[in-house]
């Protein structure tokens, strides 16, 4: 059954492997996935440790519904103290790793210490082995996976891999799986590299017993229909996430030239329909979409890189990859001001192969471009690379240099924005669009206070997948919003359909924060909940899906409380590691430019907009109040007690 999956605690320094069950009361407190991972990270990483030291932990987690009848129980969470931010690092990838990990008998693999030489961990049918990775080290993300399958003699092995970027300790290196499943925004790949850990390889043939199999199947059928009948998911199932670009860029919600503008012009080549046309042409008559385990949305396109001068220069003509996602459109086109399809497809392919965060590397290069335009960086610093906005070749070249750390600037930028700004000096820091030391994705939130608030409060740094109320952009009628946001806990405060408003938004961010934490505990996809579509499942439906699959009887309100507890542990971790609300480096505050530079482009409800700092601070204060935090964003003793976390620091780890 789902509840009998184990936790393996692997110390790479000593080679000791502890396999432990997950006590039921811990399950009821944290469910699994990201929630339980937060507890494990809190207990298994040394407070205040250097993220690249053996004292840090990196934790691979499957959700409690991984591999089960829950539309798509496909997601893996990787958590660590982020080498980029020094705070919580957590990312989530789809594909097939989490189900395989569960069939191998495990829900969580906690890795501590540091191996003397490169190793990988092989998890199979209840057993965990540390194996020599000398044949894998140095290999690209996909090469390493095909090589380990060859070595183990099993083509069905699934992997969570550290790519060359992680080996080179690029601070925003990803953990990768399959062709392009990317555990972004966590720095997990860098932590793996620092531990000499190349990959976790999993293969399992063990049953996950379904509590009520026939009911689970029937419920899942309806659940899937609810998910696939949403127009947003049908569009995603044909064009993939790039469809979002069509809406946001035309409206003025994409930051371009780092942060100079909020809309990319003359960029027909990278419109979703054009990407789709090239995808079909390059793959041929057998073209179709692909996706993650069990999923009927299948939001992932396939493509081969076109034969262009840029592709020839970098030797990638005809290479196969998947995506690109909306984030790559931003990272390789919007932010650096490039408009060409080949740049997008090559950039996307390179980050998949190096195993590095597309958003962070795109943002970092674009930030460097803005510094170059302002003369803060010169051609002497760039080794002659002409880092002007819109220079496609320079963007691709910098991706290589950062991942290989083979030039002075590449090496500096591999350290991440804040550390790089200390080395570059002058007023380079003020151009950095970051929150908590992580650069923002490519969206521009100056016209959307709710989304801006989410960025500042996201537990892993500037990010949309922790609490973004994306449906705030849909101008839903207030009664519809009321129906969504008053369940499973009552809310009778204000709500506004206007995305430029500040009222009612803090509660929306609270609601989405718990919603997304719950999804990440279950190990399902955010596209299958109230993220991009208002009609998609949430707490009410999860109560049923958990009962049929796992046998746990939890009310929607119980799930809400568990999610709140998970979020509180993440917050307590960040506070332990030095987060202070107004700290410009590690605080819950927007980069200053959000308050001072008005949007220069876009629709009438966007152009001229900035975030009003006072109103922003009022929103933040209200968020703290709703969450049971004091005025500094620290959980009050009553809140800590309410969620049973009063002994979190003192108690020995319960797992």
């Amino acid at each position, binding site marked *: 059954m789902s509840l009998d999956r184990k936790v393996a605690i692997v110390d790479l320094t000593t080679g000791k492997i502890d396999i432990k069950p997950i006590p039921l009361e811990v399950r009821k407190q944290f469910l699994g996935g990201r929630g339980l991972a937060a507890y494990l990270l809190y207990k298994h990483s040394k407070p205040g440790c250097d993220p690249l030291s053996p004292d840090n932990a990196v934790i691979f987690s499957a959700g409690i519904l991984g591999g089960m009848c829950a539309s798509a129980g496909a997601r893996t969470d990787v958590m660590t103290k982020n080498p980029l931010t020094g705070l919580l690092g957590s990312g989530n990838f789809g594909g097939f790793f989490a189900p395989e990990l569960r069939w191998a008998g495990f829900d969580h693999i906690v890795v501590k210490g540091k191996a003397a030489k490169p190793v990988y961990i092989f998890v199979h049918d209840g057993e965990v082995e540390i194996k020599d990775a000398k044949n894998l080290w140095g290999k690209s993300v996909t090469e390493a996976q*095909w090589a380990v399958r060859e070595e183990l003699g099993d083509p069905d092995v699934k992997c969570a891999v550290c790519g060359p970027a992680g080996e080179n300790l690029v601070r925003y290196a990803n953990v990768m799986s*399959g062709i392009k499943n990317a555990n972004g925004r966590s720095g997990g790949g860098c932590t793996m590299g620092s531990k000499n850990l190349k990959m976790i390889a999993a293969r399992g043939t063990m*049953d996950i017993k379904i509590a009520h199999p026939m009911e689970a199947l029937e419920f899942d059928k309806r659940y899937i229909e609810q998910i*696939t009948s949403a127009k947003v998911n049908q569009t995603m199932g044909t064009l993939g996430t790039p469809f979002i670009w069509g809406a946001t860029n035309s409206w003025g919600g994409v930051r371009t030239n780092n942060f100079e503008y909020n809309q990319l012009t003359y960029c027909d080549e990278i419109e979703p329909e054009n990407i789709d046309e090239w995808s079909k042409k390059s*793959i041929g008559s*057998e073209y*179709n979409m*692909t996706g993650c385990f069990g999923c*009927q949305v299948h939001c992932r396109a396939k493509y081969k890189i076109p034969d262009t001068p840029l592709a020839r220069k970098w030797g990638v003509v005809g290479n196969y990859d998947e995506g690109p996602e909306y984030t790559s459109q931003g990272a390789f086109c919007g932010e650096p001001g490039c408009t060409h399809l080949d740049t997008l497809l090559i950039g996307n392919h390179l980050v998949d192969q190096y195993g590095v965060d597309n958003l962070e590397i795109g943002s970092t290069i674009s930030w460097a471009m803005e510094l170059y335009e302002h003369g803060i960086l010169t051609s002497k610093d760039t080794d002659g690379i002409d880092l002007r906005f819109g220079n496609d070749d320079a963007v691709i070249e910098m991706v290589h240099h950062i991942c290989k750390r083979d030039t002075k600037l590449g090496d500096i930028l591999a350290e991440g924005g804040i550390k790089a700004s200390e080395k570059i000096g002058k007023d380079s820091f003020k151009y950095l669009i970051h929150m908590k030391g992580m650069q923002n994705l490519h969206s521009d939130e100056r016209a959307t206070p709710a989304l801006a608030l989410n960025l500042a409060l996201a537990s892993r740094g500037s990010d949309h997948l922790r609490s973004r109320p994306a449906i705030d952009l849909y101008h839903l009628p207030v009664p519809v919003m009321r129906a969504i946001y008053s369940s499973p806990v009552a809310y009778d405060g204000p709500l506004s359909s206007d995305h430029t408003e500040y009222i009612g938004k803090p509660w929306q961010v609270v609601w989405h924060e718990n919603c997304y934490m719950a999804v990440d505990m279950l190990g399902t996809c955010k596209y299958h909940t109230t993220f991009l579509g208002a009609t998609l499942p949430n707490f009410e439906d999860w109560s049923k899906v958990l009962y049929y699959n796992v046998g746990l009887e939890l009310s929607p309100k119980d799930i809400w409380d568990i999610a709140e507890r998970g979020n509180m542990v993440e917050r307590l971790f960040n506070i332990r590691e030095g987060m202070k609300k107004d700290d410009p480096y590690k605080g819950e505050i927007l980069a200053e430019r959000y308050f001072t530079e008005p949007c220069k482009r876009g629709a009438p409800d966007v152009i001229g907009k900035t975030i009003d700092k006072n109103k922003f601070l009022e929103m933040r204060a209200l968020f703290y109040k709703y969450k049971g935090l004091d005025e500094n964003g620290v959980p009050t003793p009553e809140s800590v007690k309410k969620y049973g976390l009063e002994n979190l620091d003192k108690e020995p780890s319960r797992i």
Partner: protein
Amino acid sequence: MEAKAIVVNHEKCTGCRRCELVCSVFHDGVSNPSKSRIKVEKWEWEGLYIPMTCRQCVDAPCLNVCPVKAIYRDEAEGRVHVDHDICIGCRSCVAVCPFGAMNFNPVEKKVFKCDLCHGDPQCVRFCDMKAVDFITPSRESLNKKRDAALKISEARKLGATIQYEGL
């Protein structure tokens, strides 16, 4: 009446393996692809996925090879079926199946194969893409004719010349 069969259109397969999940849940009450009767074979580096399952062969090698006659044709359900009361677990059927569609459960020490879920194959029911479908072979060839004709029609519209090499 012509019996329906499971037909695979691999070019429609997204590789999600939902068929493997629902097969093991329906038959064994567990999520476990190693107990699934259907398996999606993958060539991830080119995005190619091919679901493999029993074809319920007309002249079935598994049935022919079985030394104890444990495998028989169930005409009513259009399937080749294993009688586990007779089966001795020699796995000759596993060895001769040209598609790898006969499986062996090493714990229960039993062979197992697709039984068409008593007329409502769950893999088909849950595959929104219709990469696996449950239709009569006659319908399958009619569909294929239509699809091929459509391609010719589209090619004609583009003014392309079709080369029938070797015909």
